[in-house]
């Protein structure tokens, strides 16, 4: 009986986290299209519901009622597993995101490593989908994406090491609390810029959306997918984007901390601040999509390996030397 009550409590907590995340994923798709449209002097989706807010809901309804087509020569098990893997991995990472000092589903010791591990597993959904489709375009898209995501993970990992040097702990709440006096975006600004660009590449957003480059690969790894399975890829992709924004907000923008530590601002709950910061980063993501043309593939690889990796490694040495020289290393 006691077990059951614990299980029910946890399930309730998980639902309380997952449902808002799923709803905000749908909303964020609308926001993305809206920002994109405004930059190009269009209106964007504005018909369904007030300001077109229900557009994503209408789209989801349309996807649900479409037929799911499974190609006869595909590898059926892996073909069906791929969107499920993408979606699941994008959602389980939210378990460690702290919304305030106490509001976190799992306050684990190695929170940042968990986030990094889950985001690095995200590549499997794409590879599985591309390979199982048994078709040329999806396969090329999957191979491109695997190479791209593995390369940019390396620089994201090194950037995380930069932040960890200043914090001295792998716990996400500790990382947020360490930014009480100064957000890490100020001392580590170049790393924030590199993190932002690497996050674009990691989530296959424009200008690095080569895995699904419409002009060359039709739609990359999604070509053979239809109906709800396509929608799951799509939702997983946006959930991943939100996750990278949350990671950026926690690592560099002070997480749930209020920007100014004075009376009226500290009344606002931490979750609201975190959501505002995620939204800010997401609007930046959407703006980049609207204003930057797509990279060529060799230049994308060159940027990752020959520019970002040496730069962030040098910055690790700089940060470590600075902290050591001025005796600022966090010791506990």
């Amino acid at each position, binding site marked *: 009986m006691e*077990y059951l009550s614990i299980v029910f409590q946890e399930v309730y907590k998980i639902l309380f986290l997952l449902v808002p995340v799923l709803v905000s994923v749908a909303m964020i798709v609308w926001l993305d299209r809206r920002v994109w449209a405004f930059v190009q002097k269009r209106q964007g989706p504005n018909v369904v519901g007030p300001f077109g807010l229900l557009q994503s809901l209408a789209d989801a309804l349309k996807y649900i009622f479409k037929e799911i087509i499974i190609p006869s020569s595909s*590898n059926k098990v*892996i073909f069906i597993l791929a969107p499920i893997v993408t979606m699941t991995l994008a959602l389980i990472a939210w378990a460690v995101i702290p919304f305030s000092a106490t509001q976190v589903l799992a306050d*684990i*010791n*190695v929170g940042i*490593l*968990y986030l*990094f*591990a889950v985001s*690095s*597993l995200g*590549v*499997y959904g794409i*590879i*599985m989908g591309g*390979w199982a489709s048994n078709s040329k375009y999806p*396969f090329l898209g999957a*191979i491109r994406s*695997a*190479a791209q995501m*593995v390369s940019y*993970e390396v620089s994201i*990992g090194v950037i995380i090491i930069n932040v960890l040097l200043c914090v001295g702990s*792998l716990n996400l709440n500790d990382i947020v609390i360490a930014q009480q006096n100064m957000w890490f975006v100020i001392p580590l600004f170049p790393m924030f810029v590199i993190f932002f660009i690497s996050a674009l590449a990691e989530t296959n957003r424009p200008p690095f959306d080569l895995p699904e480059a419409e002009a060359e690969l039709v739609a990359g790894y999604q070509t053979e997918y239809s109906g709800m399975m396509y929608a799951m890829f799509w939702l997983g992709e946006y959930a991943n984007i939100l996750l990278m924004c949350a990671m950026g907000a926690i690592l560099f923008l002070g997480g749930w901390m209020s920007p100014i530590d004075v009376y009226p601002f500290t009344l606002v709950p931490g979750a609201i601040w975190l959501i505002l910061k995620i939204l800010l980063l997401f609007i930046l993501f959407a703006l980049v999509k609207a204003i930057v043309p797509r990279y060529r593939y060799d230049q994308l690889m060159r940027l990752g390996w020959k520019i970002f990796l040496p730069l962030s490694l040098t910055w690790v040495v700089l940060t470590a030397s600075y902290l050591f020289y001025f005796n600022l290393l966090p010791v506990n």
Partner: protein
Amino acid sequence: MIAHAIFFYTFSIIAVVSAIMVTASKNTVHSVFFLILDFISISCLFIMIGAEFLGMIMLIVYVGAVAVLFLFVVMMLNVAQQKNQWFAGQTTSKHIPVGLIISTLIFFEIIIVIGGWKYKPEIFDINNSLANTSVSNTHSLGQVLYTDYIHVFQISGMILLVAMVGAIVLTFRQRSGVKKQSYIKQISRERAEGVEVLEVQSNKGVKIDD
């Protein structure tokens, strides 16, 4: 305790079954997917014994990087063709003696380790290990690696670096006749170098040297 046992047996059964399936499945890509499943369940077991740092590093390094590259290579192979050569064409197997020797060696190693664990329990006494139990295992691992054994750690890093440079040198080949773009050259081009304004007289034309 019951929940703990249930999780332990679930993960270990998945680990063992997927390890068997890695060698048993005929499709090489399926083998790699089973290998990934094996890695994931092993890292779950690591987390269950309280070694959460090792478990996460296992996920990041093996599943996130090594297995992706593995999958990458295996997908490039022509699987159908390979199946014919490897399984159907191999009537007299020369691999069995070598495999037998290696597996016997590994079997005896495991016997020695388990025997030591059974009959000399003080070898595995927690007090003999260098790990300090009062801090989290990330801290104690850092303490052991970067303070007590820093030189060994540095040497192993150098060996890895040498291996990496060696692999690059061995596979690197300079191809001739490939047009390369120099980014610096492209960006630093001035208008004066690229554009020339000519007076064209009527009925005469101009000669442009290529």
